[in-house]
């Protein structure tokens, strides 16, 4: 039986903002992120990023669009276990964008330094803490210079202090690279760092809370 996850969502996201969709479990946050992330297609309606109708893209072009324009951060970090921290960050540059070796090294080391993981670069994911894994995941999401980073419950598996630090790292990245960050979370404590917050309930956006009121400050 088909279940309607989102109903009549109509939302515009400005580039270079820190946006969050909040709501209880099952409200449709992840589905919305999957639609924006070109991972899923709406049964009706359209998703456009920079005037590209991403919901119309075929499998191959959708993969290319994701590789060129989007970065992903997952609740469970989703690092590749056979690769070191350095290699995990390097992965999209080799397997997705074919970036030359010298340029790769420069970009990876720079991001690992900014995320505070430079001294852990040779460790495998199972040798890292949850917070460290997520920092590597942030570096991996940003290494391709994406226009937008989608983070699905990025702090759900982290303690509050670590979660706060990770958010700070992402906030710094946003400020430095002008990347749009879109979060889904039900962690209300993280609302302080958001510029725009949309509340979703039962597949509908029920409240738009402009970042202006929040001042976008952490």
């Amino acid at each position, binding site marked *: 039986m088909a279940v309607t996850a989102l109903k009549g969502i109509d939302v515009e996201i400005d580039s270079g903002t820190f946006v969050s969709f909040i709501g209880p479990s099952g409200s449709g946050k992840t589905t919305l992120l999957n639609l924006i992330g070109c991972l899923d297609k709406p049964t009706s309606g359209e998703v456009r990023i920079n005037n590209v109708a991403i919901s119309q893209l075929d499998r191959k072009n959708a993969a290319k*669009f994701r590789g060129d324009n989007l970065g992903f951060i997952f609740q469970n970090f989703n690092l*590749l276990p056979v690769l070191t921290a350095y290699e995990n960050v390097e992965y999209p540059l080799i*397997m997705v964008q074919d970036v030359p070796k010298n340029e790769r090294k420069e970009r990876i080391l720079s991001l690992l330094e900014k995320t505070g993981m430079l001294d852990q670069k040779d460790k495998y994911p199972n040798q890292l803490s949850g917070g460290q894994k997520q920092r590597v995941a942030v570096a991996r999401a940003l290494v391709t210079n994406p226009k937008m980073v989608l983070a699905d419950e990025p702090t759900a598996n982290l303690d509050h202090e670590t979660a706060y630090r990770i958010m700070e790292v992402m906030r710094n990245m946003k400020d430095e690279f002008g990347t749009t960050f879109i979060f889904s979370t039900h962690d209300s404590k993280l609302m302080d760092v958001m510029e725009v917050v949309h509340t979703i309930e039962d597949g509908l956006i029920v409240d738009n809370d402009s970042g202006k009121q929040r001042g976008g400050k952490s």
Partner: protein
Amino acid sequence: MTKIFKIAFRNLFRYKRRTFLTTSLIAIGVILVIAFGGIAGAFKNQIVGILTNSVLADIQIHQKGYLSSMDNMPLDMTMSGGGLAKIEKLLEESDQVKAFSKRLRFAAMVSNFSQTTNARLTAVYPEMESQTCPDLPKRVKGPEADPAKFVKPGEIILPANLAKGLELTIGSDVVLVAHNKDGSVNGITLRVGGISENIMGPTGKDGYLHMDDAQSLLRIDNGEITEIAIKLKNFDKLDTAYEQLKLELMKIKGKSDKPMYEISTWEELSPFTSIARIIDLLIIVVRVILISIVLISILNVMMMSVYERVREIGTMASIGTPPRRILSLFLAEGFSLGLMSSIIGSLLGTGILFIFRVIKLNFTFGRMDISLSPSVPLSEVLVAILIVVAISVISSLQPALKASKLEPVDALRHV
């Protein structure tokens, strides 16, 4: 590409026990193929070597139609005169032929003056025969040490069983009685100059005598012979030499403008050919077993690998890895597993053959003392590796395609 193989290798060693078991299974298959192929091949080659060096030679030439009535040893299908001279010239000028021996084969009765039995006799020029079948003189027990004189005029070499049955020893006199082609019966008294071990077992009735005695017995005065046995310089070029000689031989035509002679390789003359074919068939069967082992084990491992890593595949796909790269990643894994296993198996297989080669495998087959020194050509090792790698990639294809076609959103949800 390097990175893909690096990831593939790390994924293989991530599941060490499973990879170890699969590698071992495939390696055992490769060892089986190489060791069995090497030993069976060495056995076959040795038997063929004994047969060709002791009795048959590599190639034989007969008068047309002789082969089909060979068991009757007819004396009215002989080679002589101009035709024979042409063949001799052809063989002397051929760069493929090392030596050849003219033979006259006939049936005769052998008597010790109180008992008589039948025998198949081959009259030879010992110098030519010892060069064409160099192992024949070695199988003759007698006082003569010079292989080129292993049978002298006035002497006969009798097979061991026949000599034993007639209570003959070296130096005994025997009477040989035979029909010639005109039907007249003639006899000659000869001295037993040697006792030969028959390579094909106790039923052997093959004796040897000097060509001069046979011509005297059969009243032959024009140099008639029934066959020419040929030893090649390089046995490996048997087929080429056969074709070349056949081509030239077919040019020698009789009065009816048809070829006068027929040419046969040892394969057409020996019942061992069937055994050799069975050995070749068994080698193929062992290879098919290896292919099955590789196919099933790699398919199993790769399917499990894909199933266990669905979320990982989802992550790779979601961050934009093109499906063809995901496909290559899993194909590289299957390729690496196959290559690694086949190299290990090849090294162990050739190592085992080397040990057998050093210690020698000695046994008796029929009346042949076999001492195997098995070896395997590099090409066969490479073929085994190639088969394993190719089958590994083929069996990885289905799981790899499945992985590359996974929808990232479904894969990420997979628990």
